[in-house]
């Protein structure tokens, strides 16, 4: 299933059949936009990452506060899964793709309001075949609007769930967008009117500022291995900064309204490293990538980059093998790599895990849901939460009253649980 991540927009590498690549940076295509802008490589920091030797740590060494917030389960508030989560000062705003609805809960988990999928489609004038696919909050910190994408429309609701306005918007498939507060807009996979596409383009006031990574539209048409271009925007949660990553490229780019710079270059041990010219090789491969990498541990790229203080959160995409332990934290100061699957529960988290990565549940698809500058959010299904609690059943653990109530009164079918984590800052 396609899921959005905390880093602006994402879908799982491994479950995607049509694999994507970008062209060589230096590829010179004749563009309507003139010359392709150059990427600043003067400030590269090299990160040496050996995933096999990532370390473990405990919850309390990473976080100063952990809250498990069960979302109220009632007839009105019952929903399927958290496909996207954003927070305001008072509320959790949730997109549930399978019911197509937007749900609002207050910060203690009590249900507040919702817009049902059918109302969204009615407001857009569309029939039941259209899926509500995206949701995000606008930048207005005081009274943000909920922007919902369905069909070729963007609908804006206020936090009282009233429709404020409706706009038509059409993004090409696989194209993603991010708007900086100062007005600059970044779009991935931007097609021009001729045969050229760009991996990344920046606009301001409908004028193109810079264009990067050009490629020909039909370049990958006959390749089973690479069917399209994949480029991702990762919200850095810092004003006017954005992380940008690409398939088969081990560099982490930082986009600002003015420029695109290579911030980090990740180097892996040889067994994980793709050959340097792999982008070109990939064009000639006839098999599907899962087949090609059947007996290999090669890593396809870095994604979901988030920087909190001196800690860099990221995921690695691996072909073929199971990769539920592919989420990491790199402490840039201590130069220590931590595996998220080896964060050991301790008393701070009532000896319960803080992600469901080891249950092979939601986290492996959805990563961390949101970072609001102070708190990092993820979620569990009640099904996974009860399974985690079972491991503690023969120990003498005292849970807080809210968890005691949850385990007593609720069931595996209850609404998901939001995990609120406050990272320790240096």
């Amino acid at each position, binding site marked *: 299933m396609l899921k959005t991540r905390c880093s602006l927009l994402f879908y799982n590498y491994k479950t995607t059949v049509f694999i994507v690549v970008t062209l060589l940076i230096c590829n010179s295509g004749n563009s309507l936009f003139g010359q392709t802008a150059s990427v600043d490589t003067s400030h590269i920091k090299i990160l040496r990452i050996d995933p096999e030797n990532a370390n473990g740590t405990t919850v309390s060494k990473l976080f100063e506060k952990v809250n498990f917030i069960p979302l109220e389960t009632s007839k009105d508030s019952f929903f*399927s899964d958290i496909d996207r989560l954003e927070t305001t000062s008072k509320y959790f705003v949730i997109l549930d793709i399978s019911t197509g609805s937007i749900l609002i809960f207050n910060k203690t988990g009590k249900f507040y309001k919702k817009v049902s999928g059918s109302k969204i489609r009615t407001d857009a004038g569309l029939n039941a075949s259209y899926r509500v696919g995206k949701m995000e909050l606008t930048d207005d910190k005081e009274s943000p609007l909920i922007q919902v994408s369905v069909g070729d429309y963007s609908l804006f609701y206020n936090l009282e769930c009233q429709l404020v306005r409706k706009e038509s918007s059409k993004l090409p498939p696989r194209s993603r967008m991010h708007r900086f507060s100062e007005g600059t807009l970044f779009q991935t996979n931007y097609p021009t009117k001729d045969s050229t596409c760009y991996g990344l383009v920046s606009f301001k006031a409908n004028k193109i500022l810079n264009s990067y990574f050009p490629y020909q539209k039909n370049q990958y048409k006959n390749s089973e291995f690479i069917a399209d271009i994949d480029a991702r925007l990762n919200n850095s949660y810092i004003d006017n900064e954005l992380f940008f990553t690409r398939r088969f490229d081990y560099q982490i780019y930082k986009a600002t309204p003015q420029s695109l710079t290579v911030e980090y270059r990740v180097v892996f041990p040889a067994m994980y490293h793709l050959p340097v010219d792999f982008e070109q090789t990939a064009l000639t491969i006839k098999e599907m990538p899962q087949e090609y990498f059947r007996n290999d541990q090669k890593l396809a790229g870095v994604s979901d980059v988030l920087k909190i203080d001196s800690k860099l959160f990221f995921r690695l995409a691996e072909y073929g093998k199971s990769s539920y332990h592919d989420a990491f934290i790199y402490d840039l100061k201590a130069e220590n790599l931590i595996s998220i699957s080896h964060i050991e529960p301790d008393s701070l988290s009532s000896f319960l895990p803080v992600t469901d990565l080891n249950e092979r549940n939601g986290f492996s698809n959805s990563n961390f849901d949101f970072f609001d500058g102070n708190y990092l959010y993820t979620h569990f299904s009640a*099904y996974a939460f009860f399974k*985690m609690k079972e491991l503690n059943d023969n120990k003498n653990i005292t849970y807080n009253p809210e968890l005691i109530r949850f385990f007593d009164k609720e069931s595996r079918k209850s609404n998901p649980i939001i995990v609120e984590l406050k990272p320790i800052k240096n």
Partner: protein
Amino acid sequence: MWLRPLIIIIIAFFFHAHPVYAQQKIPVNIGSAKGILRDTVRNYLLRSATLSVYKVADSSLLSYQVSNNNGEFNFKNLPLNTPLRIEASHIGYQTINKIFSIPENTKFIDLKTLKVSPGTVTLKEVSISVPPITMNGDTLEFNAAAFKLDSNAVVEDLMRKIPNITLWGDGKITVNGREVKSVLVNGKPFFGGNPKIATQNLPKNTLEKIQVYNTAPKDNPQDSTLEMNLKLKKGKNIGYFGKIGIGLGTDKRYETDASLNLFSPKMQLTIAGASNNVNKVASNISTLLENSTFKGVYAGIDYMPDFRLSGIKRPTEGGFTFNYDFADNKGPNQQRTLASNYFLQNSNQKASSNTQTITALANANTVIENASSNDNKERTHQIFNSSYKWANEYSNVNFSHSIGINHNIGTGETSRSSQNEKHQLISTNNSKDNSSGDGTNLTFSINYNLSPAYSRKKQLLGPNKSLGFNLNYKISTEQNHNSKNNITEFISFIDHQQNKRFDRLYDLKSTNTNQEVKLSFSDLKTVLFGDKRLPRVSLNLVNYLTLLNKEEQSNIKDINPSLNDYVVNPHLTNVSSYRSIRESPAFTIQKLYAKGMANRYIKRLAISVQAKVDFLSQTNRSEKSFQNLDLLYKRFLPFASAIFTDNQFGHSYKEYSLSYSTKMNIPNIEQLAPLVDSTNLYYIQKGNLNLKSSYTQSLSFSFENRILRTKNKLDYRLAIEAAMIKNNLTDSMLIDAQNIRTNYVVNSDGSKYISYGGSINKAYKLKTSEIQLSLSSSFSHSRNPGYINGVLNYSNFFGTTSRIKIFYTLKDLLALELSEEYRTYSSKQAGLNHVQFDNVNSLTTISASYKLTKKFSINNNISFNRNTSSGLKPINYTIWNTSASYRFLKGNNMEFKFSALDLLRQNTSIISRITANNQVLGTQNVLRQYFMTSLVYYPRQFGKKINQKKTE
């Protein structure tokens, strides 16, 4: 009836007479030990590591488990005050050991944190001890080397030793309660895919590991199915195994069989043959193969001759199967396989029977017919077929052909006499037959399938449009030549004028050609209405076209007593041709509703409606003008179904299905306008040109529930079906005073039936034993109209079956199966009279296999039969088969076996059946008591001989 409880007591006593042996391996285990594993170098809890507990004294493996998500382990049922060794291992870590013992007073020990250090990857290969169970990504692996078994053990014996795996009485395999859907060897089906061929033949010592993994669609892991792969040790993927057996018995009984199976990574070849006169009939190579597996050290229920089969059969059969894989290791979506089979069967059957048929007539009158018959038939049948499969990601093609050659020859004698209700003889009809026949048939078919995903990916029909396509063409021709001589004498004791004698020669030739074309288009909706409109609707179009051509030539001659020679019978001698064309287009609309909540449940409702029209034309041309027919049938045949499934993840799975279907049945030429052969005066079939097609409407409902939440899962299901038939093709029989029966097929309304079936299955896996329980019952009722001497009669039939089965295994020592079956039949007439026929059968079976020593085992199979029919005394008989077998030679390759079959000499095999207003009772010749001594040799070689020496 005294025998049944006595034998049960004897068996029960016998099985409990060896308690010492049975309990030797079950010490008093009440201590527990827990701890945590930690990688101290990387500072984390080590999950999915294997912990094994061994007894220090003899290094025997007591228990094992995998550390949980918190790196914890907790062993229960360990012996107290005994030195024990715990071993922790994980890929990429150095294996650690710790000696401990559980104090008697606390019955518990906390081993605290066991520290493990990363090691180099190669350490795994040089490590001396192998953990019994490991998690390799999502694959659960059982390492064969960790389980100590007899050197002659096979894979099945290893599976019984693994607590996580359950082998069921019916051949099913489950791992941690979930059913394994397919068993592969090195990633491929092994000799036809029957798991027994692999698990009962492959030695445990050739196996590196058993891998168990999910083959789930990623979007719905709860719907996943389990697959098992038997990974052979390096160099063991080539070899042969087989069986040569011979048995001689009293009463000139014999059985012999031989098979040889060769395999390599790309090729599998089987050559097999068998011959016996003890009713062991195999209809193909797979059955032969299934019954000649090596089997290992565990007790298992033996394959016995079928004592309930009528007559004595003497089959001789053999053949080969050959499979070749041209696309070895080209990837899972690539298939290039050739499969060929040849099978020859020669079967001789001697059958004799004595029956009495009571036919109820109007006014409480009956006709009683006594018949005795003797038949001797010999049939030779050869079949050769091949198929080649080619597949890639989007399409597959399958070519197949088949050639069959049949030859049969037979003689038969029947003497029949009829009495009225006062037991006065009214007529006799005696006949003798000599027949022979030859036939050949040839079939070729091609099937091409293109998945809708292809047109979508290539955008052949535009963006987001797709169309699937399937073409199936089959042509078959059949040629038969049959000849027969029939001599019949009919004597009437009422009217001597009616006495008749026939001596008739038949020479019949026929050629049939049948062609079938099935063309279907799936996913039509996206083409007609686009991707967005009509969500979750699918439209499919299928067209069936069948052409049948039949040419028949019959030459019939009768003896002319004055000439003492055969002269042509102008009435029956004929040349005819028959052609039918059936065209059936069908259009299906399906709408799918789904409602799901992530990690909780998914409910689906699929509603299908099909509109189908059946056009059928029949053309018959004959030298006999009344057989020149041109008939056309046309009928609308609707179908509708609704299937609802409710999958509550990790809790239960329920499926409800309701369907309505219709069917047209057309009369054939034999029913419309037959050439009447009057040699059998007890049954003369006449034609009816006014026959119409019949129309069946049926409604069926089924319900299935699988409770998944517990280890000992429970399944139950039930199904109900009811139908009404309009214009059903039924009999109208005229029976005269001499029991000369003339039958016409007529259309009549009022045919209906209802049937119900239900079953419950449950299994308990205990520490050293296993109990499997299954209960089933069924009920059916039908009402069939028919005319007898012009009077409309309804035969109401009621039947019930109830069955309970218990399967019990205790370690490798005992396998026991108990089953009780109770059947009732009843037929009641309404209209003609109110005669009722009742029949009750009960059958209790006890099968047991017991291992006295590692090499010596005994088998018992006892069935108690009781048959009660209206107006007769109950008949009881017991069939007791027993055998003792001893295996010798180093590899247990040789088996000596002594069998005593039908030990009580009670097999009578009663005939007792009810059809409409007839009750048939009688006896037939069956296999009876014999004793047999047999010797079996199993040639076996796995891996090349040179390699084997090296590895040893």
